């Protein structure tokens, strides 16, 4: 029997993987993907809570759909900026981009 806890643990793990990738990845596209993981871990939460806590209302699932849309928008803008960065710096490695101190 898969319970709420299982979903929460999964999403927590996914979130941690996302944070880990965000901090360790040097490739800008990899960083963006890690952020996507974090978004999706939250989505798992929403859907799990929706199923177990408020089964009669679909609030959480609706929220997840919105998040997918927003994540897509964010990724679009993100990739555009990565392309810009590739043009200007000729690199996609975030370490190279350090004109101003972090």
């Amino acid at each position, binding site marked *: 029997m898969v319970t709420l806890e299982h979903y929460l643990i999964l999403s927590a793990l996914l979130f941690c993987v996302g944070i880990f990738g965000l901090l360790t990845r040097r490739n800008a596209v990899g960083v963006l993907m890690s952020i996507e993981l974090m978004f999706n871990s939250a989505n798992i*939460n929403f859907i799990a809570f929706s199923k177990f806590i408020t089964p009669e209302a679909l609030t959480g699932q609706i929220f997840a759909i919105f998040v997918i849309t927003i994540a897509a928008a964010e990724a679009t803008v993100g990739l555009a900026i990565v392309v810009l960065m590739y043009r200007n710096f000729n690199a996609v490695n975030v370490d190279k981009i350090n004109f101003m101190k972090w």
Partner: protein
Amino acid sequence: MQIELSLLSPQLFLLLWAILVFVVDFFTAERNKASLAYLSIIGLVLTAIISISSKQGETFGGSFRADTFGLSFNIIFLGSAILTVASAVDYVKAHLKHQGEFYGLILLSTVGMMFLSASGDLLTLYVSLELATISLFVLAAYMKSDLKSTEAGLKYLILGAASSAILLYGISLLYGISGTLVLDAIALKLSQMPTVGPLFILSIVMIIAGLSFKLAAVPFHMWCPDVYEGAPTPVTAYLSVASKAAGLAALIRIFFKSLASTSMQWVPLLMAISAMAMILGNVVAVRQHNIKRLLAYSSIAQIGYILVGFIAVSELAVTSIILYVLAYMFANIGAFMVVIAFYNVSGSDDIMAYAGLSKRSPFLAISMVVFLLSLVGIPPMAGFIGKFYLFSAAIEKGYYWIVVLGVLTSVISLYYYMSIAYQMYFKTGDDDSPVRVSPTMAVALVVALAGTLLIGVYTQPVLSAISGASSAFF
């Protein structure tokens, strides 16, 4: 469910106007693009008029609420957008391509913020926060061939997206605990719970962390100086005021409405953030040589002051934050306007380059002094009344040490703000040529000066206008 679209009229009107700006952009010759700025200003002013005159209420089952609180913040967003656009005209013409989209994106971001301040549930709040922020990602990277601007865009994007993911995770936990997204219902649910669990604490911490990124509060401020330095200056001005105000509106909506009953859990956390922001912002600002970085650190410190009022969680806290943000809007955008006007002529953001500005343009120099003094909180500028209210709110609730910290760090801030005045007035530069200020910029500067001085001297009308704002919470 009765849906009253008329309550949304300011937001919808501005959204349509933003689309209008994009469309008109297609049919405008390159040399006439500046007229789009004036078109945008007209739209923003009309929206402000509509906001003030439209009625209040809530619709979409409480997801959208037009109240005095939202209206006050809308005026702040619209005001900063108007001042930003007005100050940007020459800068955009000289340094940026795709002028029409620039103004359109600012309008879109403003629309997002206006939805945010009116949101009654976490979904609306989150989506509108993203609408506001994603437009700003693009704007930060708007100087396409400029390396610093690209870097600013990238940093802002990565940290902004990551913070919004953290915020989202916090929201999902809060949803799991309370079983609802509507702010009122969450408050009700939480007040019925006898104790709060570790999951709840985790969710609050994540929400605070996510929103602190938007506010650029310590320890989530790392992006702020770089983005402020790299982004086009009008965007920096807008970021430093409107985006922070939006974060505050979200923070107040969530914490004063839904989480007020658990204030014992999160007030210490915010107090610590406030103290760190005031100390770090002010101390690090002392060592800056680039005026945009200096203002970035000062804006971190300003958030610290605002949080001093925030932790009081009282009617006075709401009033004081709105009042202060209003004063901060005029002063901070005003200071950035001087930076823009000076950059347009000299092409430099170095504080040393300001040497002798009092001779080159007495108007710019004295305006800068007035804005900086307002940021310190020296009477009779608006910043004084604002800080006075913030500190009063905290003292009313007995938070003395943080107020002491606040005033002492204000003295530090006086020191570095004075270093700018020192360059402008006490030094003489190599270049003696007068700095010309364009008429649009001059009008915008006069408006900001008038706002700074009038609110400081004649505060009563503003106070009575925002007096109803706290009724949304208490």
